[in-house]
């Protein structure tokens, strides 16, 4: 990746007006697909992503079932109209890989031993894509899993950090992803303090690497607060504290 223009101006502002420590606007709505057991819609910058969970349910075909735990299946898919040039609806190699890392990012949070011989299906549909759609997808999927009432050790929050104009910045957008220096998506369980997804493309010095990871984790913590708020809003309305009766 070679950079052709400055993506951070003299005031430290990025192409979309953010500072280097700022997230794009994030909105999450829980319970948006009526037929699903759990669902969430996330707007993460210009990403618009729908996540739906079905399960635990019976496994078809039956021989796919595991005797001691639940099968987790994930599909990340982009709608044909989600990208600048129309995307062929058939799954690409990129989507197949993201489906896999997404499943592996979610799996550590789920107590799959509680549902032997069953399956949980997670469908992530990108309706409009922007940079960081896998992180936004994981974030939405995790909320949808909690909405489905599946036993979880923690919520998974995801956010990327990266390098732009040789500076480490939070939450890479589309332009920065395409023109910037490095992109590091991270998924993280905030209570358990564990990283469940991490990828990197681009070159970072050892110092930048560690700064980038720290920044991504910080971003995940911010994303987590938004996830928590969205779930609380759906289940408890505006009452964030249960009134203690005396």
């Amino acid at each position: 990746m070679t950079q052709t223009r400055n993506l951070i101006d003299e005031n430290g502002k990025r192409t979309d007006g953010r500072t280097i420590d700022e997230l794009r606007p994030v909105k999450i709505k829980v319970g948006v697909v009526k037929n699903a057991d759990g669902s969430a819609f996330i707007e993460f910058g210009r990403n618009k992503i729908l996540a739906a969970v079905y399960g635990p349910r019976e496994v078809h075909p039956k021989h796919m079932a595991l005797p001691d735990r639940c099968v987790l299946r994930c599909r990340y898919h982009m709608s044909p109209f989600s990208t600048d040039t129309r995307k062929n609806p058939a799954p690409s190699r990129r989507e197949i890989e993201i489906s896999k890392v997404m499943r592996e990012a979610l799996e550590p949070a789920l107590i799959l031993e509680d549902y032997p011989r069953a399956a949980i299906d997670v469908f992530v549909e990108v309706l409009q894509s922007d940079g960081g759609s896998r992180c936004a997808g994981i974030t939405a999927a995790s909320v949808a899993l909690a909405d489905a009432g599946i036993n979880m050790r923690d919520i998974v929050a995801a956010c990327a950090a990266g390098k732009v104009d040789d500076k480490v910045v939070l939450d890479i957008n589309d332009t920065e992803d395409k023109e910037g220096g490095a992109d590091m998506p991270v998924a993280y369980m905030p209570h358990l303090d564990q990283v469940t997804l991490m990828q990197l493309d681009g070159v970072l010095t050892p110092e930048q690497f560690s700064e980038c990871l720290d920044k991504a984790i910080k971003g995940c913590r911010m994303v987590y607060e938004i996830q928590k708020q969205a779930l609380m809003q759906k289940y408890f309305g505006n009452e964030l504290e249960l009134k203690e009766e005396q």
Partner: protein
Amino acid sequence: MSSSRRSAIIVEHLRKQQMWDAISKSKRLDGRDFGELRPLEIELDIIKKANGSARVKLGDTEVIAGVKVETGEPFEGLENKGALIVSAEVLPVASPHVEPGPPDEETVELARVVDRGIRESEMIDLEKLVLVPGKVVYTVFVDCSVINADGNLFDATSYAVVSALLSSKLPVFEMQDGKVTDTGRTQETPITTIPVSLTAVRIGDVVLVDPTAEEEACMDARITITTNSKGEFCALQKGHTGSFTIDQIKKAAEASRVKGEEIRAKIVELTGYGK
């Protein structure tokens, strides 16, 4: 190979009994009359990356359609016309009965029936979408994703396509030095008519429009009829294993004209087309 099989949804006998009780009082389980549609909601321009988009809710059935415009070669035999391609996919998010993977025959039928209604009505004046006759034309893709399935995917998808097209702005392409360039300007989509489909199902002796998933699971036969703005018929598809009498078909055709006019007015109102 197409083979007969049981519907994915098994309607409880208790529900069927209630459906029959309601039908005997000329009502349906959700309180509608036989000829009544579920509430229609249309939200436009939800996908900024598309040249036009719409999210349509017909009761609990929800469909998103996005228009993408590119250039390409014309179809064979249609050298002086732009290309229009309508596709539809029932996303696995939409219902517990959808499996991810290549489309099954019902989804293929859905895409083709919706495409036929739009194409045969000549909704878009494709002759206006030619850059170099016989060589380079506009290719208009309308892709639909069903995100919640509760029956009558045909009409919901068709209304989504129509709404997305009515509200779309096409990019202006030009030929410069033998190459296609996007001028960055946009133009109105050349609309000639507004096709509206209406789907009805027969359950026993009665014919109901806009069936829910539960009603479809009990249906004997289905018919989808598309009319244009002049009230002419432009496409039709009979589906499912049962049959219709001539009289039932004539009544369904008449309903598609009368109801179709109401729905057309509603779509024009909700999309603000022509304003």
